[in-house]
Structure formats: C-alpha cells, structure tokens
C-alpha cells in the first residue's frame, strides 16, 4: 500500500472503529475498541521507516489543495509523539479493560470516546494547516472532556466542565489568530510566513494563537483546569491525557512558533521561556504540598511542561532534540505514574500520601513503578529524563544562556523534592496511619503495563540515539526561529 493510504489509516482506523463500536451492541464495544487500539500503531512501522529515510509524507485529501482542502503530513516530531501515543494507549488498555467492563456504568460511552480521542490526537499531529489543527484540537478536547466526565462524580464533572469552558475560550482565541493570519497572507498552510513586526496583524495573530494553545496545553498561568481534570479522570484516561493530549497542544505551539511565524521577537521568546521557568518552580511547589498522590502527579505535569517552553528561547537543533526527547520520556513516565496511582486507589481505597505507608510491601510493583518514573522526572542518569535535560543544558551552554543553564540544573532538585516526599511517606514511614482495608487486586497485567512504561522511560536513556537522530533531521523551520 502506498504511504499516503497508510497515512489515512492513522485516523480512519480508530474513527471507523468508533462508528462501528457505536453501532455494535454494548457487549461488543470493548473488543472492537481494543482491537482498533492495538491495530493502528502497526501503521507507524512502515510510516516511521519513511520518515527516517526522509520521505515527504504528505497528503491532500481528495486532491483538494489547502486552504479549502485538508492537508496532512507526518514529520519527525509528529512521529515521536504518535509513538508515545501508541505505546501509552496500549499500556492503558488492561486498566481500561478492567475498569470499563460491559455492565459497568459508563462503559457504554467510554469505548467509542476512547477511539475518537485516538483519532483526534492523530489528526492533530498530522494537520498541515492552521485551521485543520483547530478542528483536530477541538475534537480531541471534546473527547477528552467526555472521558473525564465518565468518572461520574461531582468533582470529575466540575473539572470536566471547567476544562471544557477554558479550552473553548482558548480555541476561540486561536481561531481568531488564524483568521488574522489568513487576512494577512491569504494562506493557512503551516509553512506560510506570518511576518511579525512589519505586518499589520503579525504580532497580534501570533499572541492570540500562542495564548489559545497555552490554555489547551495547560501552561502556567493558564493551567488552572489541569490538576482537577487529571486527578479526577479515570486512571487510563489520565494516563493518555497527561502523556499525549496536553503535549499535542504544545507541539502545535512549537509548530506555530517555528513554522508559521517568521522571526518572532526575541523578547517574546525570552518571556515564554521565563513563563516556563516559573511553571517549573510553581508546579513543583504545588506538587510538594499536595496531600493526594494523583494531585501530586498532576501538578508535576505543570512543572514538567515548563521545560518544553524552554525550547523557544534556546531554539536550535540540540534544544529541539532535548525538548523532543523530554516530551517522549515525560509522556511514558507520567502515564506509568497515573496507571500505578489508579491501581493504588482501587486496592487501598485512598490516594492520600500519608495514608499509604508500607506501600513497598503491600503493592511492591506500584511502588517500584512510582520510584522508577520518579527517577526519570528528576532526570537522574542514565534515565531518559536525564538525556532530554542534558541536551537542553548543552544547548544553553552553547548559547551562553546562563539563566537557562542554572534553571535546568536546579530544576532536578525541585523535582526530587516532590518525588522523594512521596517515596519517603509511602515506603519509609511507620505504618501508624495505614489504611487497612484491602480491596480486590486488579489483574497483574494492569500493574505490569505501568511498570513496563516506567522501565521504557528509563531504558530509552541508554539507547537515545535513534530518537535523537530522528528528531535531529526534523528540526522545524530548519532550526531557524528566534535566535538570542
């Protein structure tokens, strides 16, 4: 089969399976959804080979050229995040299989929505023009909100509603920016130059698009929806949300910055990097004081997303490789933590950190998973998290960006603070306040899936070169962008 046809499969397989699942009787939905979730990642193998060879993987739907038609293309960054999506999606299946069995409340709606979320994420990563990106992000957001609401509590519904309202407000800012870009340039393609400064709308459009995407990516200080949404979502949903959905909006930000904007002001790059710096500190502080395990993991996302903004001031091949690699390892580690935390809640009935002493004896696999993923979050060598931060450090050193250098070097400490707090309170604390009620253990597969994700996040640090080479050849805009 030709590569464009394979490209359509990335979206059409989950989308058609979602339609089939809606039409199928309730009992058949789960097998259909699981089969489709396992089937579409195989398409990435031939497509990935094409990206590695440097093929131009693009497609204009039905022969209609943009701006009226729909253009898709797959690049290195899209391939990396799509691979994370595939791995995390499959690893979340045992947990979702257990949790959303036929007969369980909301299992009816869950599986089609799960597939629509998959299709929306792939669509957003394939979108080659600014407006299709908007449509894909809306699809992703709606599916994600509905999945959060499938945890049928007031807290989850409130969090879902807050996420929805903020995301829609963000996307309308983004679409306003896109409209201004079109008015200015007469084109919507990603590669189209939005010359800022000289153009009438350039800076306004750029600011609107970036702000809108920052809401969707939950970048500090527009992160307010994130902690509630992630901690109240069902475990497998939280895993995919934190590993992929937020990152999709972040990748969209990078694309707008490096591909759609020409020579964005350096002051803006520094400002966004500064926002990233504050996000790293604030997220880590909140993660340190939060009493609940899932909330700690959610706040840690706010902190780790800050690193991904450092790419903007540090622009360049090495910084791009570092940030792309951080995207990958953080996705794997965070998904592992959410899956492990979901199991802990099921078995011990609580995720208050202080109520979980002796976790290493009662749930050793989960405790080990949390520790391994924590190692990656801190960025200790030889984990994958270390490689990403090391590349960013090198980029800062090369550009003599001393502020960024010190920031990245110190960030490991603040991450270590909240990771070690969890480990100290759960594994090295007298069992005075332990919850003694033990509920039925979920199947071993759910624990092993989380452990494998955490192992992958660490092990990839030992063999980082294939990913780094892939990212190196796909630097957006040829490594141009803001130069300090």
């Amino acid at each position, binding site marked *: 089969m030709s590569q464009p046809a394979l490209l359509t499969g990335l979206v059409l397989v989950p989308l058609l399976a979602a339609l089939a699942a809606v039409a199928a009787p309730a009992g058949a939905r789960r097998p259909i959804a699981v089969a489709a979730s396992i089937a579409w990642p195989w398409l990435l193998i031939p497509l990935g080979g094409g990206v590695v060879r440097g093929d131009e993987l693009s497609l204009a739907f039905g022969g209609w050229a943009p701006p009226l038609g729909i253009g898709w293309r797959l690049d290195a960054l899209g391939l990396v995040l799509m691979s994370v999506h595939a791995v995390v999606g499959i690893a979340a299946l045992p947990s979702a299989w257990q949790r959303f069995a036929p007969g369980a409340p909301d299992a009816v709606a869950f599986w089609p929505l799960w597939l629509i979320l998959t299709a929306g994420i792939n669509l957003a990563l394939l979108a080659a023009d600014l407006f299709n990106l908007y449509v894909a992000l*809306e699809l992703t957001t*709606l599916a994600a*909100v509905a999945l959060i609401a499938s945890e049928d509590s007031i*807290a989850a519904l409130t969090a879902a509603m807050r996420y929805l309202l903020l995301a829609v407000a963000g996307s309308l800012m983004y679409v306003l920016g896109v409209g201004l870009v079109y*008015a200015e340039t007469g084109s919507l393609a990603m590669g189209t130059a939005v010359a800022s400064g000289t153009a009438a709308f350039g800076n306004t459009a750029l600011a609107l698009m970036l702000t809108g995407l920052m809401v969707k990516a939950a970048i500090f200080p527009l992160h307010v929806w994130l902690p509630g949404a992630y901690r109240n979502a069902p475990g497998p949903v939280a895993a995919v949300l934190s590993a992929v959905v937020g990152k999709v909006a972040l990748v969209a930000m990078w694309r707008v910055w490096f591909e759609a904007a020409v020579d964005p002001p350096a002051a803006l790059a520094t400002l966004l990097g500064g926002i990233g710096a504050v996000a790293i500190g604030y997220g880590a502080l909140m993660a340190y004081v939060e009493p609940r395990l899932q909330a700690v993991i959610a706040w840690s996302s706010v902190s780790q997303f800050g690193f991904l903004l450092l790419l903007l001031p540090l622009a360049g091949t090495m910084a791009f490789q570092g940030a792309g690699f951080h995207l990958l390892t953080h996705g794997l580690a965070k998904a592992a933590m959410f899956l492990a935390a979901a199991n802990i809640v099921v078995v011990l009935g609580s995720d*208050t950190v202080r109520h979980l002493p002796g976790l290493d004896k009662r749930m050793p696999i989960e405790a080990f998973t949390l520790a391994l993923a924590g190692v990656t979050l801190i960025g200790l060598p030889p984990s994958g998290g270390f490689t990403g931060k090391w590349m960013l450090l090198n980029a800062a050193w090369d550009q003599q960006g001393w502020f960024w250098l010190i920031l990245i070097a110190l960030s490991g400490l603040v991450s270590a603070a909240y990771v070690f707090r969890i480990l100290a309170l759960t594994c090295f604390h007298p069992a005075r306040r332990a919850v003694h009620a033990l509920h039925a253990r979920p199947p071993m597969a759910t624990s092993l899936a989380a452990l494998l994700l955490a192992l992958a996040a660490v092990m990839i640090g030992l063999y980082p070169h294939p990913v780094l080479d892939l990212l190196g050849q796909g630097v957006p805009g040829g490594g141009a962008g803001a130069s300090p």
Partner: protein
Amino acid sequence: MSAAILVFAAAAIFGIGAYGLLISRHVMRKLLALNLMLSAVFLLLIVVPAPIGGQPDPVPQALVLTGIVIAVSTTAFALALMVRLFGKQGHASIPSDLDPRVWRGRWRNSRDGPDPERNGAGAASGDKP
C-alpha cells in the same frame, strides 16, 4: 467605514462575552457568554479579510461555517454535561478558581481529613468491581 463599525462592534461583543465568562457562576450563563465571544470572532473573521476583486473571499466563509458547526456541537455537549452536573449536585454552578473557600479547603486538606474536591470518590472507587 462600515467595516470599521463592525470591527468595533465585534470587539465590544467579545469584551461583554469575556466579562460574562469570567464573572458568572452558573454554567448556562458562562455558555451564553462563550457563544457571544464566538459570534464576535466569526464576525471579525468575515469582516477583516480583504475582498478579492470586489467579490468576498470564500475561504473565511468556509472557515466560519466550519467554526459554527463546531460551536454548535460544543455547546450541545456542554449543555448535556451541565444537565448531568445539575442532576448530581442539584445546581449547575461551578466554583470560581479564586474562591477563597476552595483554597482554604485545599490547605486544610494538606494536613488531613476528607477532600471536598473529590467528594469521597476515593472511598467510592474502592467499591468498584
């Protein structure tokens, strides 16, 4: 000249909508405000692009049409979510993020005790099969 009036009108509508979205507690009002903002954005998208040879440019119209479809489905979904929230908690308001009660609750919980934000979901999830 008329275009300028429409641009100012769109700006005013957007501002009113943004104010409503931030100030109101009830989800229904927030949704109305959000739709007001969307109308302003669509109005701008139609007005701002220059006509091509005296004819209006079709692309922004196509974009706005797509945008309206998305807005309608998003609103419908949000209303369904609102009804479910109403069924659960008896009113369809969500607390403000800046509500001091939420913050006090959070700090109190950093010591011990039940978490109002979770509404006992931790205990309830233990009952799940």
